[in-house]
């Protein structure tokens, strides 16, 4: 009798442990999702500007701030390669652009004209990485990113 009871409790304990394990696993999944969501959470252009500013101070101790004028000139000119930012994103960043190679129409880049711009760090990082390589043949400096964002934020 007692042997059966032991077996029975043993089985119960196993079920309970399974139950606890399942709850723990679900918590881990939920926590992972929350962390993942935070990684791509909506941000504002000002958040990016603050980040570029912190990076620029690290890259250059003499950093004094960003310049929209410098950003505007940088946006419009080619830099040793075929394309400038304006080649695809339109000379006026509040207007619809057109991809220089494929002809596809591109939504405006200036946040005032397109509120989706500069709200997701995964997208901002992906596009700076690709487009700086296409325009400059190297990654952009934090100074360059901050200057061009300062310019884009002046465009209405």
């Amino acid at each position, binding site marked *: 009798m007692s042997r059966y009871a032991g077996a029975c409790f043993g089985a119960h304990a196993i079920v309970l442990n399974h139950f606890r394990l399942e709850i723990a696993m679900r918590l881990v999944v939920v926590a992972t999702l929350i962390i993942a969501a935070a990684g791509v959470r909506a941000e504002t252009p000002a958040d990016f500007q603050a980040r570029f500013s912190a990076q620029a101070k690290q890259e250059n101790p003499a950093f004094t701030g960003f310049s929209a004028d410098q950003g505007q000139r940088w946006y419009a000119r080619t830099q040793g390669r075929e394309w400038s930012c304006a080649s695809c994103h339109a000379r006026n960043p509040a207007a619809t652009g057109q991809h220089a190679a494929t002809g*596809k129409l591109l939504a405006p880049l200036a946040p005032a004209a397109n509120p989706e711009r500069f709200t997701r760090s995964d997208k901002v990082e992906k596009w700076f990485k690709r487009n700086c390589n296409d325009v400059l043949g190297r990654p952009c400096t934090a100074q360059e990113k901050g200057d061009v964002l300062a310019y884009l934020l002046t465009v209405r």
Partner: protein
Amino acid sequence: MNLPCSIRRWMAAAAGLGALLVPVAGAVYADSSIRPLDHPVWRQECGACHVAYPPQLLPAPSWQAIMSGLDRHFGADARLDSQAQADILRFLELNAGRDETRAGGKPPLRITETRWFIHEHTEELPAGVWKRPDVKSPANCAACHTAADRGDYSERTLHLPKGFSTPSHSKD
């Protein structure tokens, strides 16, 4: 075949009905129609710089070659993170078109070089249409296929830019 559009549409409908009655499903897709597909990562990533080109339009070896050279993708840096790259490649391979044998055994890298594309786009298309600034390139499907971003390349949504008349599209 130079029949008016309306007659050809009726003929296509009748042919479609016939195909349903006689179960030879393969024949339904053997014409020039492109079955719309969806895959959110593919649509978002490939559709950022150009229309997300239908996977059926190139064979699997072509997609493999294209996806392994995204750092220099037709002159542009189109690098993806490894997860998106793997997801998209799997989708392209699963839905790829038939193999097209090439001289030298190399897979075609441009849809515009395939026999299918040339057949569909050389007849009855006005000269110079791809050189216009608003079209720019034969890669710009959406300039005429106005619903290409939704995978719809049907005649109903085909409109040539202003100044050109819409061709009566051959479906032979």
